[in-house]
């Protein structure tokens, strides 16, 4: 059983790699400390925090661990070594993640002297009933799937009249499974909906360039929270250091909440996030909405197993604000009905699926209604919209609904990402939106209509601004980059099921 007080004690390496630097002599230390060993008493109060969250290090020496200690056996085999930062001023122990080395003969010297990026992952396996320990001492090679990207805080230039998206990020992992023309993203053993939420949030912070301490609230929508009771959002806020940090007390001055409404858990909060930054005292601040899921599905031969053909893994994060907006929120419309087409009772592992309702009246009715009502409200025709994105549980539904609504391929195909990453549940339509934002031009109008079982849809109209071009170069890790990356690794069905279960 893991103990929570101990989890608090190690939280600075469990969440985010931090250390200290002496202002007098410049010596750096792994782990925060109050004085410098070289400078002694005079350095009290002169120790600066250093943080490696957005940095890159170098793997100096390493070895292959093929017989891990008990808690790490689910990782099978991995490279473990010493990572240095700041040209060798500080060193930390580290594990390389995201590779299968069990059956392989590996010459470990090939990993040495290469750049690595710190990652946020589960630490090791614990009992199902325990707190999930996390770790910042995991790394991936910077020249592989996940790139090193500079995090630069940019002062806001312009205040907009309407709130909107000021930055976004998507995270899908390096692993995929492929069946026919469908590729789906698969988590590594040490990933889950929490780690994906952090990665997407990090990408959004890099893209937006906002000061994370200005974050007023974070909403994390998911239907695969590993906890029945305990928020994800608190972890994400702490790891991403959102809001002002009160170091002495170890709290972030930010509101954080989890939301759940099947696959629209995140999109539902877009309007709330936008509304909040419109509030007079919050206008200088920002809000973040994350949709994250390690989408659940029973094995194929079991009840609910039909979902197993489409489930993916990934997260999206959108930052809302009044400043340097890249897409203004023009209007929105939501509709809801109690239609039980998909559910998971407490303590059940996998969701069930009411096949009778799924397409009609559930998905099609809600998506069409929300889209039609929004177009009616704004007096718009499909031709007035440049891009149409809808929830993507599979390939046929979004195409069918878009066509029925009168949209053409060039309007809906750019946002259709399900064949690349699978159905990422709460991240599904937001990932489609991100794919469109990756390519949109100023003055483009984007319609996004989510769908969440149970059931409801949120429709939004977004108007792209010229700022989108200014920020685009900050983000290398685009949807296309992730979909067409040469370092993507494909796994077979059996491995995919094992990876989905995780540690």
């Amino acid at each position: 059983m893991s103990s929570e007080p101990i989890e608090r004690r190690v939280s600075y390496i469990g969440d985010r790699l931090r250390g200290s630097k002496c202002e007098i002599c410049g010596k750096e230390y792994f782990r925060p400390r109050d004085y410098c060993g070289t400078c002694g008493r005079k350095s009290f109060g002169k120790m600066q925090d250093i943080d490696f969250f957005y940095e890159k290090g170098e793997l100096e020496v390493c070895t292959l661990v093929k017989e891990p200690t008990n808690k790490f056996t689910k990782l099978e085999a991995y490279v473990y070594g010493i990572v240095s930062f700041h040209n060798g001023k500080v060193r930390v122990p580290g594990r390389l993640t995201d590779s299968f080395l069990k059956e392989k003969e590996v010459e470990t010297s090939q990993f040495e002297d290469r750049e690595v990026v710190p990652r946020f992952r589960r630490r090791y396996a614990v009992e199902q009933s325990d707190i999930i320990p996390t770790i910042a001492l995991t790394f991936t090679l910077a020249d592989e799937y996940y790139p090193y990207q500079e995090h630069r805080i940019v002062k806001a230039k312009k205040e907009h009249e309407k709130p909107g998206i000021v930055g976004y990020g998507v995270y899908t992992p390096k692993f995929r499974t492929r069946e026919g023309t469908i590729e789906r993203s698969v988590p590594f053993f040490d990933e889950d909906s929490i780690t994906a939420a952090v990665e997407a949030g990090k990408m959004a912070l890099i893209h937006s360039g906002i000061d994370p301490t200005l974050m007023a609230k974070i909403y994390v929508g998911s239907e695969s929270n590993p906890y029945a009771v305990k928020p994800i959002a608190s972890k994400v806020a702490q790891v991403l250091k959102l809001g002002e940090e009160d170091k002495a007390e170890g709290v972030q001055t930010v509101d954080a909440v989890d939301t759940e409404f099947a696959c629209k858990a995140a999109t539902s909060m877009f309007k709330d996030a936008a509304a909040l930054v419109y509030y007079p005292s919050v206008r200088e601040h920002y809000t973040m909405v994350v949709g994250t899921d390690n989408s659940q599905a029973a094995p194929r031969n079991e009840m609910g197993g039909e979902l197993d053909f489409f489930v993916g893994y990934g997260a999206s994060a959108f930052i809302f604000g009044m400043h340097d907006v890249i897409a203004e929120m023009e209007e929105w419309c939501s509709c809801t009905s109690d239609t039980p087409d998909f559910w998971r009772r407490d303590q059940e592992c996998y969701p069930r699926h009411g096949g009778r309702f799924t397409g009609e009246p559930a998905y099609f009715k809600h998506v069409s209604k929300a889209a039609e009502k929004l177009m009616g409200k704004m007096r718009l025709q499909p031709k007035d919209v440049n891009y149409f994105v809808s929830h993507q549980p599979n390939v046929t539904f979004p195409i069918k609904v878009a066509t029925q609504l009168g949209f053409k391929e060039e309007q809906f195909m750019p946002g259709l990402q399900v064949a690349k990453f699978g159905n990422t549940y709460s991240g599904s339509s937001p990932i489609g939106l991100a794919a469109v934002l990756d390519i949109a031009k100023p003055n483009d109008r984007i319609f996004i209509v989510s769908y969440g079982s149970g059931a409801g849809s949120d429709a939004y109209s977004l108007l792209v601004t010229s700022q989108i071009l200014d920020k685009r170069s900050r983000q290398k890790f685009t949807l296309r980059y992730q979909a067409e990356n040469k370092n993507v690794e494909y796994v077979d069905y059996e491995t995919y099921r094992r990876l989905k279960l995780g540690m």
Partner: protein
Amino acid sequence: MTQSCPAIIGVGRTKFGEHYEREPEKLIEEAWLKASVSAGIERKNLDAGYFADYFLQITNKIGIEEGFLSELTELHIPMEKTRSFSSALLNACNAIQAGKYDLVLVGGVEKMTDRWDKIRDDLMLLEDPWSYYAGCTPEANHELMLREYVKQHGISGSQHETFNIALAQIAVKNHKNALQNEYAQYQREISLENVFRERQRAHKPLGLYDFAPVSDGATALILASPEMAKKHADKTVCVAGSASATDYVSYPAREERTEFIASAIAMKNALKMANIKVGDIQIAELYDQSTFLEMISLEDLGFSKRGMAWRDIAESFKEFQGFYRINGKELFVNTDGGLKANGNPLGATGGAQIYEIVKQLKGEAGNRQVKTYADLQNGLVLELEGFGTKAYAHILRRGDQK
């Protein structure tokens, strides 16, 4: 000088290995009784006890060890618990030198096999939690240090081959030495091929035969003030030098990663206290948790120059006569089989190392006796806690006959 040092007047130990059927108290009882008999002392004359176990609290769920020992000895004397045998000895020496006690029981015990399924997690978590959380194993730091060493000293090509062979020869030598040690965990010879095959199987520079095993066992000794020693023993061995040093718990965070600075500091202070030079030491028990550590210890302690120990070892093995020849001097190392073959029950390990040096200095090592009694003067024991986090150096000197 010698006369004022605390003296070891008796030693005792159990066989190392798996003692499934015996409780930790039973093991310490055997070692303690043997030490008492060899010292010829009465239980009631003991002034204090210092006992070591590294993690009996975890492995055997024994909380207040002193209570078990009080029950065992039926004594109510002061007892303190430390983590390693050398630490217990160092504390006992300090107390005797301070004039507080005259006769002290020093003991150590460990029972690791009772926790065979979780032992590697325990060892690693206690060694360094941060490395453990990052995925380190008890073996991995040895491999990283070896890698650092090879890179720093630019060992490549045929040199690298010589280096690998030299390390393997350490394991072979220690197993051979253990053949003459009735208490050793492994009394069987291994070949260079065995060592290489295991390395190959693991695809690593160090394999199964490069690492010390998991062991159960207990050791004990009786330490006496110089005055008390005169009354009890004809031949005594005195603790001429006793020192320890500490270092960061996280090996990767240390500035020096191809040496243990704690070992070097402890050695320097022990030599100073004993008023001898490193060249005066003829026999040493080094902490060969891995073959690499036996090698690196030769450098840390000042026997070999930095970057040269593997060459000294390789040269010595060209015509091996039981000792390393370093800078023209003979040095016997791990004549009892070392941690590798004698065994490594952590809290008791240092006691076995001291046992060996005491036996050798007194000329009582039987078939293992490396030299005649008259030719041996100074012996050294290096014991570590964690991966170089603590180091203890004890210099033992043959006492003059009464």
